[in-house]
């Protein structure tokens, strides 16, 4: 069965004055895929994501998410996607349940439906015990998990996660990555996530894009990248770090 293209970017460019944050990026992400977007600080990962979400307008080029242009049909796109921003914030005076309820209402999910969903999600992200505490008192890891719950409450088709593991301890990171993997495997969600940490991208991604200074320098599965980038034969040992360093030096 041919898989549908969920995210399509063609010649996508974003300039801030003289600086080009994203430079002629062309990329497709297929349904159900976990796409890891790898790049150092300032590479243009967040900017790309903002253009995919319609939160900033491209200077040139086209974007389609589920077939819609996020700049022209923002609501259509936003109904189908979930977005976890880089540094997610919450209404600190409300508890986890109230924060989730607000997001659910903004998505037109009736309270009757969202009540059950909220309970299930809180279990899933292991916040059920702390659900009635003010979010202001949450630790970084708890906030990140609550952020994921907020993304999932609307049951999106596509999920954008901007550095979802940043600031998490090794255990938290592992659980987050398992969760991401589960979303794709069990719920058939398409996941587009960014990170600057090699091992994490390597662990969960079906395909990887490497972005350096606004340019997508390589894209493909890990094996593809190794063969093309390092000229390795099949079965030879490599690490993503080697690949990354090679592209990094070239750029």
């Amino acid at each position: 069965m041919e898989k549908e293209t969920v995210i399509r970017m063609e010649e996508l460019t974003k300039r801030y004055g003289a600086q080009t944050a994203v430079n002629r990026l062309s990329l497709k992400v297929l349904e159900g895929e976990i796409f890891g977007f790898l790049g150092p600080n300032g590479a243009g990962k967040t900017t790309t994501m903002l253009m995919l979400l319609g939160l900033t307008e491209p200077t040139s080029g086209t974007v389609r998410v589920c077939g819609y242009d996020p700049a022209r049909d923002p609501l259509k796109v936003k109904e189908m996607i979930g977005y976890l921003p880089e540094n997610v914030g919450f209404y600190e005076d409300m508890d986890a349940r109230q924060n989730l309820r607000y997001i659910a209402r903004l998505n037109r999910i009736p309270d009757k439906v969202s009540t059950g969903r909220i309970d299930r999600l809180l279990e899933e992200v292991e916040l059920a015990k702390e659900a009635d505490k003010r979010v202001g008192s949450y630790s970084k890891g708890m906030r990140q998990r609550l952020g994921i719950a907020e993304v999932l409450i609307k049951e999106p088709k596509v999920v954008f996660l901007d550095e979802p593991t940043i600031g998490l301890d090794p255990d938290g990171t592992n659980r987050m990555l398992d969760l991401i993997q589960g979303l794709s495997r069990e719920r058939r969600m398409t996941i587009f996530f960014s990170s600057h940490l090699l091992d994490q991208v390597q662990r969960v991604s079906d395909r990887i894009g490497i972005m350096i200074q606004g340019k997508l320098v390589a894209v493909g599965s890990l094996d593809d990248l190794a063969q093309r980038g390092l000229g390795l034969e099949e079965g030879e040992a490599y690490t993503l770090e080697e690949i990354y360093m090679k592209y990094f030096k070239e750029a």
Partner: protein
Amino acid sequence: MHGIFTIYKKEMEDHFSSTRFLLITALIVMVGVIIASMVGMSMRDELQGMAKPDFIFLLLFTSTGKLFSFIQFIGFFGPLIGIILGFDAINRERTGRTLSKLVSQPIYRDAIINGKFLAGMTMIAIVMVSLVVIIAGLGIRLIGVVPGAEELGRLLIYLVLSILYISFWLGAAILFSVVFRSTATSALASLAVWIGLSFFIGLGGSLLADAIAPMTQTADMAQAQDSFVKNAEVQRVASLLSPATLYGDATSTILDPLRKTPRSFVLMGPMERISLSRFQNPLPLLQSVVIVAPFLISLIAITFVCFGICYAVFMRQEIRST
């Protein structure tokens, strides 16, 4: 529509639990009620055994007690309610990093602004209506008169005017919260505009008048008179730029039908006051409304301009969570 309603509800809950808003409102309600009840008490003493003049009930709101009248007090400090409700409407979400989450939900961006504005406006209406009702209740007890239909009608128009006027400040404050990223900056900007328009425009107006049409010191009587009129005219036009002055004039026209001239009290000289008190024919309600209507329309118009700028800035703005 759905988005507006959800945001409206959340904002209302926030306002009701906002210490800042409750404090400033309590203060304004307290002072307002004190002013009006002082006026009421002195009226009760003065009116003992006398025939009650026309529109005595409205005097509760318009007579200057020790310092200024209730409507002057609201004219000066009412805008603070609007500013408190609006100055951090958008940039609070920005600094709290909830804005990028909010704008990635399936709602139009203008729903965020509209929902917040409507919630603020509802709070303003609640405060103003309760204030007037409290004072009316006090008045009935203190001076023992029940307001007539016309007085009630005038109070109602006064309420509409005041709610719209304070909402204009709410709109301006929300505009600042869109334009400025820091809540401190938008608070200061709102306060600066408030002080500028409420207190200094009169000053600025007379400076401007002296610059454009200086009063000449000549022996020629006609020429001196001419320059005096010109100077006054420039001052008047300058004061039209100030919504505070316009509001003051409009409310005194509505609530003070005997004065017949829409000049704010503080700007009136003693001679003017005496001459006015000679003419005791009240301005009919309809006439008062006709005088006030242009102000009302321009007030609504500038509020819409604020909104227009808000939309233009916010609609296409890039929203990052950093």
